[in-house]
């Protein structure tokens, strides 16, 4: 007997119990849909994140000082410990191409052509290499020591009139001071340029640490002891005097190339200095803090690990739903075999072999499983699509998982149908024909 004939007869049997078949497959539908939906979301999220690492970024090492036990992503629990002297010393080290500080600066608003746009934290102070050439849509990097800024498209489009290269922008800082910058470049994306900023799009203005950050520290310390000073004080312990200088929350070290060996050399070199007694940072690190220094890829990997863990967890729960679903199929198949004992007897009387009967019931279970898998996949993709649309990330179809889902449907059908089908196959035709 041919597979197609099995399929035809199985489909007939399934269709004759529409409601029952639909309810039976529901467990599989829900299980597969859950897996597919979460895998789609996970894959899309991953693509959204990993897609943001440009090859030029691969040679950058992002470092910050925090309690080694602190959990979380980049800058979690970071304390400002890096002085300008440290940065200068690190950039002179072997294998290091450049090193600069990173410091987010709190702001109140951005003003352009008299138009004011409230902005609480959109100012990032860093070194010129932070604006990688491949991220510039137009213009150039800012220069250290100049009152220049690079803005992202979100800032450029924020005002009635688009801000363009050469325009002046006034920034109202947290402390109330105002400072004016000349826009020298516009980036091609409103997403963060490094893991420090996060990846969600938001308006950002990039400025050189000198003069913007150093000035702010000076004014803050000159004022009422300012927030930075008190922050420093808490972490500095006995390190008096260091608070006078601008301390950076984070350090970006640029290796000579994106080569793994070069990156590792730069990392060792920079860490070696920062942890040695020669550095200002070592004084502030004390016993509680340690410097973490990682590439974007490594940092994302942590996020990825968390994401993967979460995904395995959810897929695990969905797998349980699949197990429950297959028990449902097995149960209904057993009922079906009992119900159709007489039919089995008839088929055997007219020449059906045991394997024909086995194949028939197994096909029925597999068809149920596959229908469940197909419907579940469709539903899952729909939910995944809605999810990615809702949180606004690019949709990535996990094609591998779609194939896997169908395979799981077949497997579930076979596993749950095997015992009922075997029972059907070994039914004694004499008893079956007498069965009422």
């Amino acid at each position, binding site marked *: *007997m*041919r597979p197609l*004939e099995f399929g035809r007869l199985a489909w*007939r*049997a399934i269709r*004759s119990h529409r409601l029952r078949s639909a309810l039976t497959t529901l467990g599989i539908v829900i299980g597969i849909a859950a897996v597919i939906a979460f895998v789609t979301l996970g894959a899309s999220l991953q693509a959204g994140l990993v897609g943001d690492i440009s090859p030029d970024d691969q040679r950058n090492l992002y470092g910050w000082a925090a309690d080694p036990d602190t959990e979380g992503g980049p800058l979690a629990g970071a304390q400002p410990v890096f002085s300008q002297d440290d940065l200068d010393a690190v950039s002179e080290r072997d294998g290091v191409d450049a090193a600069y500080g990173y410091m987010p600066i709190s702001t109140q608003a951005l003003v352009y052509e008299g138009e004011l746009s409230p902005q609480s934290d959109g100012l990032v102070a860093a070194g010129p290499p932070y604006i990688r050439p491949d991220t510039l849509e137009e213009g150039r990097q800012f220069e250290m020591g100049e009152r220049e800024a690079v803005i992202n498209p979100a800032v450029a489009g924020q005002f009635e009139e688009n801000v363009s290269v050469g325009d002046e922008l006034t920034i109202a800082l947290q402390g109330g001071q105002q400072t004016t910058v000349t826009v020298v470049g516009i980036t091609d994306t409103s997403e963060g340029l490094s893991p420090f900023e996060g990846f969600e799009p938001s308006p950002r203005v990039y400025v050189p640490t000198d003069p913007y950050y150093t000035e702010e520290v000076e004014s803050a310390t000159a004022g009422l002891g300012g927030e930075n000073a008190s922050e420093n004080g808490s972490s500095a312990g006995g390190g008096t005097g260091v608070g006078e200088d601008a301390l950076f929350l984070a350090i970006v070290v640029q290796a000579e190339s994106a080569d793994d060996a070069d990156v590792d050399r730069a990392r060792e070199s920079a860490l070696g200095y920062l942890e040695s007694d020669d550095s200002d940072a070592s004084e502030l690190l004390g016993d509680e803090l340690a410097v973490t220094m990682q590439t974007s890829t490594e940092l994302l990997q942590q996020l990825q690990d968390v994401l993967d863990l979460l995904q395995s967890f959810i897929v695990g729960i969905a797998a349980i739903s699949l197990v429950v679903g297959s028990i449902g199929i097995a149960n209904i198949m057993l009922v079906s075999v009992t119900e159709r004992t*007489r*039919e089995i*007897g*008839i*088929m*055997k*009387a*007219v*020449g*059906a*072999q*045991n394997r*024909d009967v086995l194949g028939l019931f197994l096909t029925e279970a597999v068809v149920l499983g596959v229908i469940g898998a197909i419907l579940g996949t469709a539903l899952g993709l729909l939910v995944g699509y809605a999810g990615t649309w809702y949180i606004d990330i690019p949709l990535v179809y996990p094609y591998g998982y779609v194939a896997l889902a169908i395979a799981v449907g077949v497997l579930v059908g076979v596993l749950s149908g095997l015992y009922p089908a075997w029972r059907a196959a070994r039914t004694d*035709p*004499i008893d079956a*024909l007498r069965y009422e």
Partner: protein
Amino acid sequence: MATGTAVSLQNVRKTYQLGEPVHALDGVTLEIPRGTYTAIMGPSGSGKSTLMNLVGCLDTPTDGTVVVGGEDVTTLDDRERTTLRGTTVGFVFQTFNLMPRLSALENVALPQLFQGVGRSTRRDRARELLERVGLGDRTDHMPNELSGGQRQRVALARALVNDPTIVLADEPSGNLDTDTEADVLDLFDEFYDAGTTMLVVTHERHVAERAERIVHLLDGRIERVEELDDAGRDSDVAQGQRDGVDGTGAASGADR
């Protein structure tokens, strides 16, 4: 018309172990030549069903040999017996036993499905048989859309679809009213006349009298074999050629 032996039972015993041994058949020797029409009668528990199951290759004897269509059933394994059953035996049951979800045509075609016959060939053959039993216009009806008589005709068509060596009918008119019964039995006669070997189990005398001989079973043994002449059979079908039947393969009670 085919000649030779369709079914041969030699000293057949069937014993069931139900606490104590029950001899359903206790030494039965019976020969059914091809092209003959035999009826088996007997009260409940006389071994009719067991005999049917053995001839229908659904069961194997505890002792003795059963030869169906030239094959010794006792030497076959389950799979070979199933194949033999599918190709040489056609069943007609009291309760029709049609597949409820298959149309008349599909029911008739079912046995060929298990023999690996192609779909279009199957359907052509099934249609031809349905026309022969007078249901050419009911091919796509489901069993529950057919009357009892029509269902039994479908069952008869199904029994004949593989050109069986023998058609086994177990109380074929037990669920039919008198008129329909006559129609169906007339159809049996028709196929018998065309050369089909018939074995009918019944407890009704007027059904058994359609056959050319009646085997009476009692307590698992053949009590007597009644040969009917043309006059004994109903007068509706003229019997010309009944050669090779009398005497030669006559059943006899063993153990006597």
